[in-house]
């Protein structure tokens, strides 16, 4: 193997003129500055040429191509101030390697390594050329040509151009036209951006995206981790030749293009996965449409945003035409995506997530054989390159040789797991197959889930036993014959044997028969949970009737409704409960305590039971209206109980403690099943036992099973965790509510058991139709524990609104079908028909019950509970499950109950969560926000968390959502001024803030104060009391009229300080926040709130607000004031710096000046840019003819008028000749007139003065290396703007590449909760190991 470098002399074609960068190029440059190479990766071409000549000929061809395309020889120069220009002054270096001598079997691996090594090194655009070449000899007439290009000069479509040009160059050298039109792109772009065409295009997009924007994406992982990793995942797949042909046929018949069919199929996939058919996505467009653009190599592509209005009923061809039309429209109004995103991100409301989350790109054929000279064979040796400039990108490319389509999905690894991507790819292909077979198929009729998979996912627990048809009571009676003396029920101090139970039931059954009980006759059992209640129920069943359990403790209105609604014919009760029965009811009433049954036979009545005969009616309270009676038949009931017994592994050894109430059907399952298998139950004698009593009962009676409501399970586990008193059980089963992982972990730890069963089931599907049976310690990913699979003769389906099965991981409504569903609602045929619908997956006329619960299938077929259908809301295009927010909050320590909802107060939709603290705990809403910040996506964080003493309940014992209070900014009573000074100050506040109802104790910032208002107040205050030099810091630190007045009265040293206390105390190291230019330090308040009560924080007043306009201005002098304070306060102690924008430079300078005086743990840098290029050292301004003189005259005239003449004279006097020229240029570029409203600190002139002054300060400043730990963040929009971001790695060896905060801007990033949570994460890392509050030993980091 040999290596050498072949280089031809520099070529000077287009001259060495420099050109500016396009917006797209600026963004890529900025990404390079912050160390990101994954959003736009290196572009790599590697083609194998057989029959094309010797290596020297290939190299010559490569150089000929490099001559044609400046992209292969571009160099970039960065000027003072950060302006970047490009010039085609480089030369292509071509590396030669010979692999011909490598053994054939090792050659592929060697080639792979070689190409990896070739592509891997980062380009340093300021020193290297923008591309490098490679020629690898595999044989005499068999070579690889490789070209690696920086993405700033090359897009994927450029690679096709290069492949074609190489081919041409090898065949002949006919085309020598140099393709340098690409260089003038930026100039043309700048002109266009100032043209009316730009305004039109922008207006189009503003109109297009005004409505709710549903950002299309696949469902993201639940339980997102903390910080962003930038990790990407790829999934490759192929559309085979047969399908490709059918797609081509469909496209041709429908008058569409193949890429449009693929793009439509991709969006249909997003719609079906997301359940939203109005969506926003994007498509990559080759930017070579204009005449003269063909054959250019450069970063020319555009992104066309798509706002699609599809609908489930649309046919595919109609959808594709819609997509095509929207694409064409978008193309006509195309606008650089960098500019478009920043134009559309105007306010806080838009700043949720990225502008385009999902992107599609179709590429033409690389190395098209039809364009290849005869005798030459070209093959690409690289897989299709993916792209990383959206959360999810599908790239397809036609492989001409194979007649197939290559495809690759590239997606954020933080958001998507690999299995989901693979499935989505499979479903994309299924969509294509379906539409290729029938272009007029409606979108909702495309089946994504295959029959075999649906069969697997919907299947119940494995159970090959055959149920027998004996009804429940006959099963139980059988044990009275087999084991009459065995204990059946333990209740307080009573113990009933199987024999006693059966005899009691038999005698009562005879009496019930004579009272009119029979098939389809309802008998109300108004008896509290007891052995007698069970005997009564069995008696009703034995008499052929249907029982209705009525809890004596329930509200009389509810019970009266039940008696009437069900047409109850017989009521069994106790004499002391007689008054609970309405007097006007037409029913036979039997009082158990007054019945003499001694004459009744001990044997059961001779009655057989039909499979479809009514067994019971259970009343459920809906969230609205009156309780509905759910009617259940004998066949499904007994089969369900038998399957349950097997899955729960119940036997005559089972001794169960059933804790569920008799008002729920689950409570009946839990006595029926143990008794059916000959076991025993320990029936609690109170509605509620304390955890202590429960554990004691388990021990006393040797319980081996317990069935407990989820809510009570938590208390029980907490108690057991403390006391360690829980006896080992075989099985705990629970249900009734979502079970969070933390609760599950707790009960796993504190309640020893062999099995745990999480049960789920609406009454309409009979008791517990689904269970998740696991060993303790099992982990799960979702918010709640899975609800598992179906039990017995049932199937469960997760379906979309069109009743299509949802793919794994996609949220849909849960439907339960098969034998194990109820007959329906008593007396409500319409509601029954509405909720029990034809089962499209069954052949026997079966029905599915529509549960109203949102769920998704896991990989293993277990179903996960997500939330209620009616608790799903949409906010700014995001579908949000309120249950997920609630679950995240309930997991937090101290939170007892929680409810989240979407409020619409003042027409402004926002998420609000209400939390009820556990007894004796005070909840801090900010702390809760912070805690859930790392668990939920940004758009799911409630904008307000309101602590309540208790949740409002309606008469149905359900949460009364309407009664939840709107979160209010509590305006406390206005306390009148007590002194003259207070009265004077309050007058100023009222004037400046325009609010009359101000009291002396109101907080300036809470009543709408901001820094400009603060400055106005100070200006007025100084006129009032010129002798006291009050500063803005005084107002910030004393934000009420009363405290400010006290400060002014007191006078003294404190006045005039630059230090603002953001939070005075806390156990963590002090956080120092450095101010940006012309912004107050208040912007940091939200961050500090987020960081929590243990995080002390100090801010500094921006010098521009401090009015100290002394011209010793240097960064060192400005920083020096802050440094003094920090040294005094934190010498030898750990601390953290944070600098936003210009403040980052101050933070860095402070870090340098303080050196080892403090233990600096972290310097956070947010969007820190270098100063603009106008005043950069050495930047020579250009003027049009006569322009300079005119500007000069303008300045003289202006200086004659301004009241800040002396300040300006001082500033202008400090300028050298070049700086003054720059100043004139700067004025010439300003659109507004020179201001003369100074010198008031809030005036525009003052601001203007500060800007110029600051520019002068900065042009003098030199950044020197200093190794301090730096972590930086960048607003996504700043990249779009191509801001001149500082790469801190050039100054500190302990600096990391910046993290990108998606969907936010330079101004808003400081308030972004995505930033807050990531900063908090880094702070935690930086101070890990420190005992908070203690002065830990300083770990000195010195540059070695």
């Amino acid at each position, binding site marked *: 193997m040999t290596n050498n470098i072949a280089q031809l002399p520099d070529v000077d074609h287009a001259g060495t003129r420099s050109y500016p960068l396009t917006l797209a190029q600026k963004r890529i440059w900025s990404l390079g500055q912050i160390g990101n190479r994954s959003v736009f990766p290196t572009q790599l071409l590697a083609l194998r040429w057989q029959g094309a000549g010797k290596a020297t000929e290939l190299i010559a061809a490569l150089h000929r191509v490099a001559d044609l395309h400046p992209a292969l020889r571009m160099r970039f120069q960065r000027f003072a101030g950060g302006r970047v220009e490009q010039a085609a002054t480089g030369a292509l270096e071509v590396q030669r390697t010979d692999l011909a001598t490598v053994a054939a079997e090792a050659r592929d691996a060697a080639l792979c390594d070689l190409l990896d090594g070739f592509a891997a090194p980062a380009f340093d655009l300021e020193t290297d050329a923008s591309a490098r070449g490679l020629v690898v000899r595999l044989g005499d007439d068999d070579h690889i040509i490789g070209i690696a290009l920086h993405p700033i000069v090359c897009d994927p479509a450029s690679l096709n151009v290069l492949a074609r040009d190489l081919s041409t160059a090898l065949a002949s050298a006919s085309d020598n036209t140099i393709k340098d039109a690409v260089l003038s792109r930026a100039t043309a772009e700048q002109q266009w951006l100032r043209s009316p065409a730009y305004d039109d295009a922008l207006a189009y997009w503003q109109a297009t995206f005004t409505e709710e924007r549903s950002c299309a994406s696949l469902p993201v992982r639940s339980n997102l981790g903390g910080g962003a990793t930038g990790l990407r995942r790829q999934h490759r797949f192929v559309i085979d030749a047969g399908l490709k042909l059918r797609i081509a046929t469909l496209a041709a018949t429908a008058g569409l293009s193949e890429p449009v069919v693929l793009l439509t199929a991709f969006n249909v996939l997003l719609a079906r996965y997301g359940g939203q058919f109005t969506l926003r996505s994007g498509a990559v467009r080759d930017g070579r449409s204009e005449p003269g653009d063909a054959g250019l190599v450069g970063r020319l592509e555009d992104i066309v945003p798509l706002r699609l209005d599809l609908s489930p*009923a649309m046919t595919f061809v109609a959808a594709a035409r819609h997509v095509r039309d929207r694409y064409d429209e978008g193309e006509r109004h195309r606008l650089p995506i960098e500019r478009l995103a920043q134009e559309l991100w105007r306010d806080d409301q838009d700043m949720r997530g990225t502008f385009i989350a999902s992107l599609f790109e179709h590429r033409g054929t690389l190395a098209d054989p039809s364009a290849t000279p005869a005798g030459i064979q070209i093959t690409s040796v690289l897989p299709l390159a993916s792209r990383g400039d959206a959360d999810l990108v599908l790239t397809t490319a036609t492989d001409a040789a194979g007649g197939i389509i290559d495809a690759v999905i590239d997606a954020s690894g933080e958001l998507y797991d690999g299995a989901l991507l693979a499935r989505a790819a499979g479903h994309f292909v299924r969509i294509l197959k379906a539409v290729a077979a029938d272009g007029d198929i409606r979108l909702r*009729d495309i089946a994504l889930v295959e029959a075999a998979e649906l069969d697997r996912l919907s299947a119940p627990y494995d159970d090959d036993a055959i149920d027998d*048809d004996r009804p429940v009571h006959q099963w139980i009676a059988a044990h009275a014959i087999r084991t009459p003396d065995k204990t059946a029920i333990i209740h307080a101090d009573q113990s009933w044997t199987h024999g006693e139970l059966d005899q009691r039931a038999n005698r009562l059954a005879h009496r019930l028969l004579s009272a009119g009980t*029979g*098939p*389809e006759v309802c008998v109300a059992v108004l008896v509290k949970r007891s052995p007698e209640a069970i005997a009564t129920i069995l008696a009703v069943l034995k008499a*052929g009737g249907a029982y209705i359990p009525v809890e004596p403790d329930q509200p009389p209105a509810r019970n009266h409704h039940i008696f009437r609604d069900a047409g109850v014919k017989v009521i069994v009760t106790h004499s002391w409960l007689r008054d609970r029965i309405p007097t006007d009811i037409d029913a036979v009433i039997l009082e158990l305590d007054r019945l003499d049954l001694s004459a009744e036979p001990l044997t059961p*009545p*001779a*009655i*057989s*039971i*039909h*499979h*479809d*005969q009514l067994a019971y009616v259970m009343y459920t309270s809906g969230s609205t209206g009156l309780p509905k009676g759910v*009617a259940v*038949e004998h*066949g499904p009931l007994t089969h369900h109980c038998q399957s349950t017994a097997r899955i729960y592994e119940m036997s005559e050894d089972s001794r169960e403690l059933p804790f569920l109430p008799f008002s729920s059907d689950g409570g009946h399952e839990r006595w029926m099943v143990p008794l059916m298998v000959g076991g025993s139950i320990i029936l609690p004698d109170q509605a509620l036992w304390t955890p202590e009593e429960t554990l004691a009962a388990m021990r006393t009676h040797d319980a081996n099973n317990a069935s407990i409501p989820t809510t009570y399970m938590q208390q029980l586990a907490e108690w057991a965790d403390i006391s360690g008193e829980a006896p080992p059980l075989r099985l705990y089963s629970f249900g009734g509510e979502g079970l969070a992982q933390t609760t599950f972990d707790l009960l796993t730890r504190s309640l020893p058991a062999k099995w745990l069963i999480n049960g789920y089931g609406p009454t309409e599907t009979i008791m517990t139709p689904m269970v998740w049976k696991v060993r303790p310690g099992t982990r799960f990913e979702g918010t709640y524990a899975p609800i598992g699979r179906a039990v017995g003769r049932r199937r469960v389906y997760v379906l979309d609104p069109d009743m299509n099965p949802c793919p794994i991981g996609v949220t849909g409504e849960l439907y339960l079908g098969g034998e194990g569903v109820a*007959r*329906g609602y*008593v007396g*409500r*045929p*319409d509601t*029954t*028909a*509405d909720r*029990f*619908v*034809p*089962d*499209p*997956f*069954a*052949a*026997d*006329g*079966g*029905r599915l019950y529509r549960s109203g619960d949102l769920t998704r299938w896991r990989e293993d077929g277990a179903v996960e509970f997500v939330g209620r259908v009616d608790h799903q809301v949409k906010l700014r295009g995001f579908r949000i499950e309120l249950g997920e927010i609630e679950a995240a909050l309930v997991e937090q320590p101290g939170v007892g109950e929680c409810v989240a909802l979407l409020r619409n107060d003042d027409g402004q939709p926002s998420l609000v969560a209400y939390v009820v603290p556990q007894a004796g705990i005070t909840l801090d809403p900010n702390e809760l926000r912070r805690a859930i910040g790392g668990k939920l996506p940004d758009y799911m964080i409630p904008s307000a968390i309101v602590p309540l003493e208790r949740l409002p309940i309606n008469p149905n014992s359900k949460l009364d959502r309407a009664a939840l209070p709107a979160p209010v900014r509590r305006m406390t009573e206005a306390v009148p001024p007590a002194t003259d000074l207070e009265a004077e100050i309050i007058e100023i506040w009222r004037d400046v803030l325009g609010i009359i109802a101000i009291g002396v104790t109101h907080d300036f910032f809470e009543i709408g104060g901001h820094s400009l208002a603060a400055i106005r107040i100070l200006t007025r205050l100084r006129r009032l009391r010129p002798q006291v030099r009050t500063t803005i810091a005084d107002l910030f630190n004393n934000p009420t009229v009363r405290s400010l007045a006290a400060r002014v009265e007191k006078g003294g040293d404190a006045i005039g300080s630059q230090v603002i206390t953001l939070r005075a105390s806390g156990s963590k190291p002090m956080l120092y926040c450095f101010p940006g230019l012309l912004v107050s330090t208040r912007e940091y308040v939200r961050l500090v709130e987020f960081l929590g009560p243990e995080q002390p924080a100090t801010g500094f007043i921006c010098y521009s607000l401090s009015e100290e306009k002394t011209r010793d201005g240097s960064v060192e002098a400005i920083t020096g004031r802050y440094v003094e304070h920090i040294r005094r306060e934190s010498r030898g102690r750990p601390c953290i710096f944070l600098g936003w924008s210009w403040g980052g430079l101050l933070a860095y300078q402070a870090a340098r000046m303080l050196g080892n005086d403090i233990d600096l743990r972290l310097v956070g840098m947010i969007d820190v840019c270098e100063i603009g290029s106008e005043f950069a050292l050495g930047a020579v301004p250009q003027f049009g003819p006569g322009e300079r003189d005119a500007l000069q005259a303008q300045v003289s005239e202006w200086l004659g008028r301004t009241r800040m003449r002396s300040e300006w004279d001082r500033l202008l006097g400090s300028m050298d000749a070049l700086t003054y020229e720059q100043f004139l240029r700067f004025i010439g570029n300003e659109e507004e007139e020179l201001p003369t409203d100074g010198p008031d600190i809030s005036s525009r002139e003052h601001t203007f003065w500060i800007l110029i002054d600051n520019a002068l300060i900065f042009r003098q400043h030199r950044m020197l290396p200093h190794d301090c730990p730096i972590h930086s963040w960048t607003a996504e929009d700043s990249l779009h703007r191509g801001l001149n971001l500082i790469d801190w790695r050039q100054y500190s060896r302990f600096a990391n590449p910046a993290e990108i905060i998606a969907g936010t801007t330079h101004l808003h990033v400081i308030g972004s909760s995505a930033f807050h949570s990531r900063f908090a994460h880094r702070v935690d890392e930086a101070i890990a190991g420190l005992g908070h509050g203690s002065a830990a030993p300083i770990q000195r980091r010195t540059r070695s």
Partner: protein
Amino acid sequence: MDNDDVWQVVRNNEGRYSVWRQGRPVPRQWFFTPYTGSRSACLAHIEIIWRDPRPSGWGRVMDGATGADQPQR
């Protein structure tokens, strides 16, 4: 009413009623009845016509039987 949103009253082999969107093949052992309309209109119609909640097989058994000795399915 949107043409796409027409529903039909359906009845199964056991005489249970429900609704099904027109244009979709009705599941096996379910049969269209003549009534069509919006979903809510279909449900309102079912409220009028579905008088016997019992599955039809059991209804026949029960109505035909006298006394307690009914054949077990």
